[in-house]
């Protein structure tokens, strides 16, 4: 190896990687010529573990896949299990789920923004988005009693209905957040150093992104109008009116913009779902053992397409439960984004990816 090149291990303990993973980069000067993400430091054997749990025991475990967006994993598990059991959640539960999922999406995006802030060296962005996130954590805490791992969805519905005056609280929070979101955006969009760090960095075009299996905001930032809420609607997303946010540049700035716009759209969906939710039961009884067979479900996680494939052998425990984590694939596609950029760009490129190792390693 020439003396002006060196391998650097950015991880598993490194300030830029949120979670335990390792990014090996080969530097020529400060330019990256080769990159290799290494994962597995947080592998808990989740898929093996759930084979020894009953279906209802897995609901809180699904929360633990990702603390940043635990509700969407929780919901995905319940949705897949419902399919396997051959039952369907009542109409009101579906609306509640949609509203809560979008609240969770906003929370997750704010957590992401916090991480981007620290990665780029601005603690103001971090503290501001943490402050905003607290509003939504309060809402979700009021609903489910927990701040992070909600354990809210159930096979066949949701655990409890909205608490008293919940719709009023949510609307108030959303009004307040809409105002603060403008502040937050002006902190970044009108900030020359922020633009210097993000525009034109980590470019990836739509065709490559599609081939590499990218999904979610990163994919939409590359100019592909791909959103499972529209392409393969689940729950009641068919009835919701919202835009799918896309951007054509495919760089870090585009990915940032897509997520910021998505928060606005999520707010719209929350308002709609809250207003249109019919009254009725929120849960149906699920049998203890599902019939023999398999079921598959994929939903639009805040990070991309997350999928669960479940095989049942007719007993009270799943025979096989496979999780497709969006981050797992997005991370595998990261080396082409990094090549040719400087080591200083690594936090920017990997930061907007919204890394969550809990769901990547499982």
């Amino acid at each position, binding site marked *: 190896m020439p003396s002006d090149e060196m391998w650097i291990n950015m991880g598993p303990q490194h300030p830029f990687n949120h979670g335990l993973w390792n990014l090996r980069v080969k530097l020529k000067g400060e330019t990256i010529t080769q990159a290799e993400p290494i994962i597995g430091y947080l592998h808990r054997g989740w898929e093996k573990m759930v084979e020894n749990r009953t279906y209802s025991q897995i609901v809180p475990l699904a929360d633990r896949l990702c603390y940043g967006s635990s509700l969407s994993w929780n919901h995905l598990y319940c949705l897949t299990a419902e399919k396997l059991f051959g039952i369907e959640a009542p109409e009101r539960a579906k609306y509640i789920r949609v509203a809560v999922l979008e609240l969770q999406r906003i929370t997750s995006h704010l957590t992401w923004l916090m991480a981007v802030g620290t990665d780029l060296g601005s603690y103001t962005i971090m503290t501001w988005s943490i402050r905003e996130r607290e509003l939504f954590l309060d809402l979700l805490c009021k609903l489910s009693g927990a701040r992070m791992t909600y354990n809210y969805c159930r096979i066949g519905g949701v655990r409890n209905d909205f608490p008293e005056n919940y719709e009023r609280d949510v609307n108030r929070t959303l009004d307040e957040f809409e105002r603060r979101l403008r502040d937050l955006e002006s902190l970044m969009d009108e900030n020359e150093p922020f633009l210097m760090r993000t525009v034109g960095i980590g470019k990836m075009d739509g065709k490559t992104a599609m081939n590499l299996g990218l999904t979610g905001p990163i994919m939409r930032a590359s100019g592909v109008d791909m959103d499972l809420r529209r*392409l393969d609607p689940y729950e009641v997303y068919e009835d919701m009116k919202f835009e799918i946010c896309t951007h054509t540049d495919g760089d870090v700035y585009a990915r940032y913009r897509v997520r910021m716009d998505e928060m606005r759209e999520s707010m719209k969906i929350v308002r709609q779902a809250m207003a249109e939710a019919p009254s009725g039961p929120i849960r149906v009884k699920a049998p203890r053992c599902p019939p023999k067979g398999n079921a598959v479900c994929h939903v639009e996680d805040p990070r991309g397409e997350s999928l669960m494939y479940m095989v049942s052998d007719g007993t009270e425990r799943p025979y*096989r439960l496979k999780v497709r984590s969006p981050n797992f694939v997005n991370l595998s596609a990261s080396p082409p984004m990094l090549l040719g950029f400087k080591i200083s760009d690594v936090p920017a490129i990997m930061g907007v990816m919204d890394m969550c190792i809990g769901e990547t390693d499982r």
Partner: protein
Amino acid sequence: MSQVIVYDSPDRSVEDVTNDIRSKFPSVEVLKVAPRRMHLRAPREVFLDLCKFMKDDLSFEHNSCVTPVDYMDHFTVVYHISSWTNHIMAEVQVDLPRDDPTVDSITPLWGGANWHEREAYDLMGVVFKGHPDLRRIMLPEEFRFHPLRKDFTVGRRV
């Protein structure tokens, strides 16, 4: 500035696409067809050709997931392949004998399958022929077992 690729309404129906596959590959068994879903079972000999056909002619752009399942007497690798253009998710099952769990890799077609196949190799021991970099991904290199197999047990509770 390039254009946004938009997938607003499906180009072709599921039945249409399924019929194409039926006529081209008679050995592929169609298990079930549902709205936006297609369940197939393919012998491993024609699997790679099927995938090529699906990608090039039926515009299946995206590989969602590769799932190996251990059914004790045989392995089944389940591929979830999505077509954004037609709004279809196809589920392709490939049965492999237990003593020779080898199947063609689809990583050359869909780069997104890369780590899924590595994970399947790591945890279940399925070997993907033609994979560019088939190493363990979650577990250390020197690990001697494939822990997701059903005959790998570590006590009562894992």
